[in-house]
Structure formats: structure tokens, C-alpha cells
């Protein structure tokens, strides 16, 4: 994990995203404990209140759950929830940006589609 303090994105959102990504790629599996607020704070020198704020986003998104006195644990369907969310965001986050860039480069629709096809063929 790495946090970018230059980013225009508030730090607590970066904390939430980093943990979310770790769950998505399977670094933290369903039922597993995520590092405690203190551990994350210490290891990345981030204020515990900021880390907690990021964790609370994941709690309200239904990705992790607090078990009293034991810490935060990844919920069973967390990975699937992230997948669904990212699919929803795919158009906005990737396709629209690609089209804007394509237009500014003067690439037409057919060219872009053939480039996408080429991308799929590459491993």
C-alpha cells in the first residue's frame, strides 16, 4: 500500500480505496481480519482518526464488519460487491475518458474499436 499525500483526494478516501483494492485482489480474504486502525496509522504515519474515517466508509459500504473487541473483518460478499460497483463505474471511469482522449487525438470510432480488439488479443 502507498498513500499519496500530494493527491487532491482526501487521505481518508485514499485509505478506503487502498483497503478496498486489497480486498478486491484477494490480499484480505472473506472472513479475514484487516489490519487495525493502529497498525495502519503506525505503518503509514497517518492520523488514527483519518484511518478510522476511511474504515467507516467500508463498513457502511458493507465490505467489512466490526467485531467488538476483535477488530474489523472482511464480509463474505465483499469481493462481489466491489466487482459490481467497479462494473458500474467502468463506463464513467474508463470509457468516457478514453473517448475524450481519442477525440482530442482525432481517432475515429472504428479506429478505437479496432484498438480495443487488439488490446483484447494481447495478453
Amino acid at each position, binding site marked *: 500500500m502507498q*498513500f499519496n*499525500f*500530494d*493527491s*487532491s*483526494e*482526501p*487521505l*481518508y478516501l485514499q485509505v478506503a480505496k487502498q483497503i478496498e483494492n486489497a480486498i478486491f485482489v484477494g490480499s484480505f480474504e472473506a472472513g479475514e481480519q484487516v489490519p487495525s*486502525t*493502529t497498525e495502519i*496509522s*503506525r*505503518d*503509514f*504515519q*497517518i*492520523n*488514527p*482518526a*483519518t484511518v478510522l474515517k476511511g474504515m467507516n466508509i467500508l463498513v457502511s459500504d458493507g465490505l467489512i464488519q466490526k467485531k467488538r473487541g476483535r477488530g474489523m473483518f472482511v464480509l463474505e460478499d465483499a469481493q462481489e460487491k466491489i466487482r459490481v460497483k467497479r462494473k458500474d463505474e467502468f463506463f464513467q471511469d474508463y470509457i468516457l475518458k478514453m473517448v475524450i482522449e481519442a477525440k482530442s487525438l482525432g481517432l475515429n470510432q472504428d479506429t478505437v474499436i479496432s484498438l480495443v480488439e487488439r488490446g483484447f488479443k494481447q495478453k
Partner: protein
Amino acid sequence: MTEVSLNQITKKFGKQTVLNDISLQLKPDTIYGLLGRNGAGKSTLLNILTNRIPASSGSVLIDGQTNINNDRVLGKIYLMSEANLYPNRAKVFQIFRQTAHFYSGFDFELAHQLASKFGLNENLRFSKLSTGYRSILKDIIALSVDAELILLDEPTLGLDANHRELFYRELVETYAQRPRTFVISTHLIEEIAGMIENVLLIRDGKLLLDDTAENLLAQSYSVTGPEKEVQEYTAGLNVIGHDNLGKLRSDYVFGQLDEERVLPDTVTVEGIDLQKLFINLTGQTDKEGQL
């Protein structure tokens, strides 16, 4: 929980006003960054808080009581600074013991652990310690005393990058385990940016900002693009500084942007970090940098 308030603190050295009418309240259990350029008055402020020097006027109240010659109240505060208050012949472990006379809840176990992590030999005399290890010794004491308000004036002076990171890690860990108020004064803003919840910014002896880092960064922007378009977009906004690279220009804006203005395709708006904000707010070379 300890309540700390500074009320209209002014400090003059001869004709020079070093602190000018500073009033603020420290929130309990909060990590503060005390920022300001050299000579802005940061150390003076910390020294007044701990009654090492008197204010010319104004008062410091700790839980409603004056801090002047008040040991009960001063026992709630610890100031780590460049000043070396220890006898040269005293050994490190003796200094720990001596500190425990004043701060009865001194955590010897933590102090030993930290000494070992930092590689500080407790049998060395104070006079034999390098600048870096003198800072480390005082940092260890700062984290081990049972004070409610810990003031750190350049805590990483002379520390190498590894020791600085170790210190920040230990600070955050002890804070998470036993929340209390820290005020950290340092020039290495980037290194503490993630830790500080609240920023105090002093410029020319005045308190310019007292707000959460989150609030400050949420209204700090860089606007970058071709000079002409950037200047049209930022006209009338609170521009606190700029950078130029040929005809490419970045204006730094502190305060809200005008939502009604159309952002040209060639211009990008981004957030800036605390250090950039600080540099632009305290820059003295140009006429900008006014709030």
C-alpha cells in the same frame, strides 16, 4: 482531558513584537502541526505555553488555571525543544529517573523499549551524545511522560531518515493507544502531513490559520494551463501564489472556486498538499500570499 487556552498572548523582545495578540484553544486528544517560517514565533509560543519565558501580555490557562509558577499545571505539559536542560555528566538512565521525579507516571518500560529501538545506550553521558541522539533522548522522554499536552519543537533535528520514520511511527502508535494532545513544530511538513489533524499557521507573529488539515486542503487548489486562460479563470479569486514555466502557469488558490465559471479544456484544477499551501501562504518574495 486537559483544556488549554491562550488568550491574547503578545510577546515583545525590546521593540520587536514576536507574537502579536494570539488567542487559541487546543482541542483535547488532537495532533497539531504548528507551522511557520524561521523566526515566525513558533518556539516563543511553545516556551510561553510552558512558562519557560513570560508573555508581555495575555494569559495561558490550563484547565482554567494560570501556568505561571504552577507546578501542578505544568506537570500536564512537556516541551521537547533544542534547549538542553540536563547536566552534561548525567547518564541517559539517570535522566529518565530524574524526569520521573517531575512526571510521576513516567513509563520506564516504553522508554527502555524506545532506547533499544533507536540504539540509544542508556549508560552514555549526555555530553557524549550527538545532536541526533540528544533529540532522540528528548523524543523518547516526550513519548514516555504522562503529560496530557506534548509540545515538540523540531523533534527530528539531526535525525536521519530511518530514525525520523521510526519516531513518527512510535508517536502515532502511542497516540493511538493513549490519545493526548501533541503540538509538532517542524520544517519537514511533508513528513508529518498525514499525522496532523489540525494546523496552526503563524506568520509574522500572528496566528494566520487555525483549522483542520482536511478543511484547509478542501479549499486549496492549483489551476494549471496556458497563462492567459489560467489568469482569466482565477481572476478575482484568492490567488496566493503562482509558478511559471514558460507560458505554462499554475495559480494557487486558497478559498472557494467560482462554480459558475466555465473551466477551459486546456486548464486543469487539482488539489495541493500542505507543504505547497504553506509555502504559498508564507511566501515573502512576492506581494501575493495574503489571506
